[in-house]
């Protein structure tokens, strides 16, 4: 059975794009439109990789990332952040949450800024799936 990749993004276009890249490379895409649903699907499907957006309505990617990386059963799943937000900004917001008393979390395995070339995304996914 092919490896599962969870795509969390509120933009349907992005989901279609990412899912196509996942499929074209021989993996199975699963989709969620926000952080809240993302976490549910994550726990149920236990994917091999997560492609995560940061700014989303309902629960944001920032929050989902923290929950994933502080959950013993989930923290082994590699995460590729795919966002319009700069990596610097994302890390700063994580640092701020840590300073507010949350548990510190490691940096994401990969960080890609939108717009991303499909070849680059495929190369990045292969790192964790092969």
């Amino acid at each position, binding site marked *: 059975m092919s490896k599962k990749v969870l795509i969390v993004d509120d933009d349907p276009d992005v989901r279609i794009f990412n899912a196509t890249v996942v499929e074209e490379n021989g993996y199975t895409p699963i989709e969620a439109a926000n952080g809240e649903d993302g976490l549910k699907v994550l726990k149920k499907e236990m994917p091999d990789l997560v492609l995560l957006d940061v*700014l*989303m309505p309902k629960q944001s990617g920032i929050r989902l990332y923290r929950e994933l990386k502080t959950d013993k059963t989930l923290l082994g799943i590699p995460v590729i952040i795919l966002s319009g937000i700069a990596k610097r900004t994302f890390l700063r917001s994580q640092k701020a949450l840590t300073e507010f008393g949350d548990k510190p979390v490691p940096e994401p395995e990969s960080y890609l800024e939108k717009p991303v070339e499909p070849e680059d995304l495929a190369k990045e996914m292969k790192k964790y799936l092969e």
Partner: protein
Amino acid sequence: MNRDHIITHWNQAMEKLTGHSSPEMVGTNRQWAPFWESERPSMGDLILEQRSDHEIWNLYGGRCKNSEMIEGGYEAEVFFPKLGHGGRWCWFTAAPLKSADGSVIGAIETLLDTTAIKRAQEEQRLRNRELTTLCSIYTALNAPTTLQERIGGAVLEIRDFLGAESVCLYMAEDTGRFDLRYFNACYAEPGYGQAGPAEEPGIIKQVSKTDKPQVHHLGTHDAVNGKTEGPTFAYIPISAKDTQGIGVMRIEKESGLFSAEELHLLDLIGNRIGATIENAMLHDEVMRKSKFQFKLIKSANEGIIATDEKWQTVIFNPAAERIFGYSAQDVLGRKDVRDYLPQLVQETLLSNSEAVLDANESSPWTETEITASTGESIPVRFSGSVLRENKKNMGTVSFFQDLREIKRLERDLLNSERLAAVGQTVAGMAHCIKNILHGFKGGSYLVDVGLDRDNTEKLRTGWAMIQRNITRTSDLVMDLLSYSKEREPEFEVCDPNAIADDVCELLDGVAHDHDVQVVKEFSDAIVPVIMDPRTVHRCLMNLVTNAIDACIFDPGADKVHQVTVVTSREAGEIIRFDVRDNGSGMSQEVKDKLFSSFFSTKGVKGTGLGLLVTSKLVEEHKGSIDVISTEGEGTTFILRFPARLPEADRPG
């Protein structure tokens, strides 16, 4: 006493003085017995033997002299330790008794007990010494030098007066401990000033607390002969009338005890030192406060000008120098403030001085202009008051704020806010554009995949993505243009109801697709007016779109969702539009951010500029926008635009 030295008379007074009766004494030659331990000639005996002055002098020392009253007689005042309890002082005269031919036939001695007088004199002497000491201590304490030197002087006086080994003062600290701070030189020299009793710290604490002196003796004291061995320490509280427990004075005597008088005196001195220290502290406090106030006035950002009761300037701080352009030197004591303060300020101060205001109440801040030394008019805000003490005018004080400075600060603030807004806008825009670019990338990728695989479905999806992102790009550009362009409303005759109807028709399709009803409630009172129809149209489009979205996003699925557009006419030729929905409503957090750029609750669907553009358009049209919203129940936006009636329709 007869020629043979035999007592012939011993009167009652002698009996009383000596305790020896007349029968016991008369007929004997034991006249020495009541006075001395062993036999020795009395003055009368010496006279009978007609001894020389020289011999008498030898026997009685300097205390004896020839009587001025009786020829051949002698007088002396002598202390007889054997007499009475503890001895008596006696003044006595001895004179020869002569016969008619001048030969000595006997001698007579008269004695006067002067003990009481002597004691009184001694007392007097002691009192004088005490007084002298107190005087010198008071003088030392009031000397025009530092507190350290004054107390040092007093300490030396105390030591000399008591013949003390050492005198030192322990001062109470804020921490509750005592610090040895003043002492006579001897105390500091090695070998002088002994350590006190082991419990000394406790004694000092107790003396300070109870305000009662204590004496501690180290060594032996023989009560019978009054001899002591080893040092004695007196601990005297130092306190003032209002401040108790300032410290404790320790006086060490190498030998001998402290008399009650000495202790009493030391208590007085302790109070005096306390008062001196208290005064010094008060003085320091006053000096410190006055220095602080001086600095405060000097560094104040407001110009402060104070006058005495004759309008002479007494305070003119650096801020006042900056505002008025005079230097303090030009003004202080030289310039009548009425020469340079504007009429309004003077009148305010005067009315203040006449009014029966509570003491020192300031006038409210008032804006006016002052004329600086250069002749320049400078806008200021001022407040002034008359200074009173016991209802007597002492002078005036006025405060001036330089409004040039405040206006400059306001401008700076506005600029920095603008910069921040630009930064935020650029950041938000970059994010928005990145997402759109990503959409284009995705679209072209899907088209590529579709072409490669000959997969029409992928091709179609990719093409749709590209089209959607073209729309998103044009929306963003349109919003940005209308936001950034300074646009004057173009006024023309139009029908508000017709504009609202057009918007409802345009959006009815989208609404219908999402099961949202669009309801029109238009007022008949509305007639064609002069306003900018494009502004109104654009605003209503934005608000009705938002309202439909609020219904689409509303999780309450069992609701019949409605967007209602209401038009009405308000007094003063105001056209009002209400856009009401029963959708999701807004939280306070969302309401707070409503009109800030690139804030959107719609995810990718919104540019985050819609309400910002709407509020800008409304502002340009001199209208207003209000919002009422309850989370979970819905939102109403209220637009109000001022309108003019066309000439023909105007009443009159």
